[in-house]
């Protein structure tokens, strides 16, 4: 009890004081520990999976096995069957994310600063956020066909809404102090937006992007499952229906690696451009 109280107190004064410096090495140690434990957990999980499959407790026809998956992954990497699906998935995801970022952030900024407009649009954003977007997929196919366009639309549909919402929230809660400084110095509206409002809310936008990236990737894969186009999602489906469980698991592994890499990339961008915000 007392320990948690102390911890939260330390967090409160986690500004650039000496105390924070003293805490640093400890937190680094904790980070190392969590890394080691994390890797150990993965290895343990794979080991249990392998033992269950090898001993026949579960049928490897259905469950594959770590060794089988690794073998299939190696084959797919060397014979080149993996690259086209990876490229297709990344293309629709990338284009969709770019569109989401280009539109959701400026619109979010404007809605955040214009209460009347925001209250007008708010119910629509709430509806889009609350209704599972997958349900719109048949409609999207009906509107945009079954090719690339529909897949991109679904990525945008899934990624833009969380990004829009976090941008609006950030712009709404913009620190009055910062804005007052710009006002006192007679900065124009545009200059204030660019030099104060935008950097002040950038950390929140970046965490919105982190959220959007996760959702967008789901959108890209779900679209492929439905549309049966070239891509990692449809590849898993085809492989599973052919009872190629090793290959299917290998493809899932690739999706997992891509997801983790993209998340790491966003984390890197966050540390580069929002280094001054203490939440990260």
């Amino acid at each position, binding site marked *: 009890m007392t320990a948690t109280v102390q911890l939260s107190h330390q967090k409160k004064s986690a500004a650039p004081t000496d105390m924070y410096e003293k805490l640093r090495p400890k937190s680094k140690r904790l980070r190392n520990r969590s890394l080691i434990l994390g890797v150990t957990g993965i290895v343990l999980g794979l080991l249990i999976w392998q033992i269950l499959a090898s001993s026949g407790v579960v049928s490897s026809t259905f469950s594959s096995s770590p060794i089988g998956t690794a073998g299939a992954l190696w084959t797919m990497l060397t014979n080149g069957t993996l690259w086209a699906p990876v490229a297709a998935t990344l293309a629709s995801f990338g284009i969709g994310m770019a569109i989401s970022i280009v539109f959701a952030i400026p619109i979010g900024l404007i809605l955040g600063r214009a209460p009347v407009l925001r209250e007008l649009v708010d119910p629509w954003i709430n509806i889009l956020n609350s209704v599972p977007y997958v349900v719109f997929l048949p409609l999207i196919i009906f509107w945009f066909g079954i090719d690339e366009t529909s897949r991109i639309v679904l990525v945008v549909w899934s990624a833009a809404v969380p990004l829009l919402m976090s941008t609006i929230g950030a712009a709404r809660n913009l620190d009055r102090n910062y804005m*007052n*400084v710009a006002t006192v110095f007679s900065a124009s509206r545009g200059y204030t937006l660019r030099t104060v409002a935008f*950097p002040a809310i950038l950390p929140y936008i970046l965490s919105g992007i982190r959220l959007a990236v996760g959702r967008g990737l789901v959108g890209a894969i779900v679209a492929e499952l439905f549309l049966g186009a070239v891509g990692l999602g449809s590849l898993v489906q085809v492989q599973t229906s052919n009872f190629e469980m090793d290959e299917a698991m290998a493809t899932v592994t690739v999706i997992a690696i891509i997801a983790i890499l993209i998340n790491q990339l966003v984390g890197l961008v966050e540390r580069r451009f929002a280094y001054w915000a203490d939440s990260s």
Partner: protein
Amino acid sequence: MNDSSALLEVRDLKLGHHSKRNGKLSLAVSGLDFDIRKNELIVAVGPSGCGKTTFLKAVAGLHPVLSGELKLDGKQITGPGVDRSMVFQDSSLFPWLTVMENIVYGLKAQKRYDAAGKARAEWLLDLVGLAGRGKAHPSELSGGMAQRVNLARALATDPELILLDEPFAALDAQTREVMQEELLRIWQSGGATAGKTAIFITHDVYEAVFLADRVVVFSAGPAHVAEIVDVTFDRPRSPELKRSPEFLRQADEILSLVMSQSWAKERMVTA
């Protein structure tokens, strides 16, 4: 009072806030009436919540005037202007900019950042005692250092009138003393800070007497002028002044003025 040298004229000023809940107007300042001369360092003190900060915000152009005159150089203040700048209480430095970028922010916002502006900013960095720290980020600064940057930022645009809203209130007692002396040193240094007029708001009467040419004591809210006290100590003033009997006598006088305003308010509330 020689009217021709008045920089800021305050006549029967009325300021207020509209309540967010019911839209009812509550007055912060009413019937405020005094002048500020050029080159004067005016310190405003008063009971807490009396409307000092609202008054300062109105001068900065951040708060609308309900009625009365609030004239800078003979012109009614209707919004912010390049002739004024403000030193904020705390945490108003932009954490995503370096110290130097913070200092030149006003110049850049007013499209006046040129070679002269750059030189001025360098000079100010040096003046506030942060030479060589221009590339640091605000998160690396102590509270006192942050307020030095805040002061340099306000001076960088070369305003006619500087508004200081309890700039040292969040600092610890020791740092506050140092910063008061620093402020006077900067004030008295001449050069780019010469000829500046300032309004400084505080609740610390010792700070007020140490810094001010005149101390304006605000009444309990809605504020009007309860008393204006001339502080005639010679400049440059040194820290030793704070221990002189005359200094303490004057601080006591102002303290009792402020306290009587607070009591008046208490009585009003209980009555």
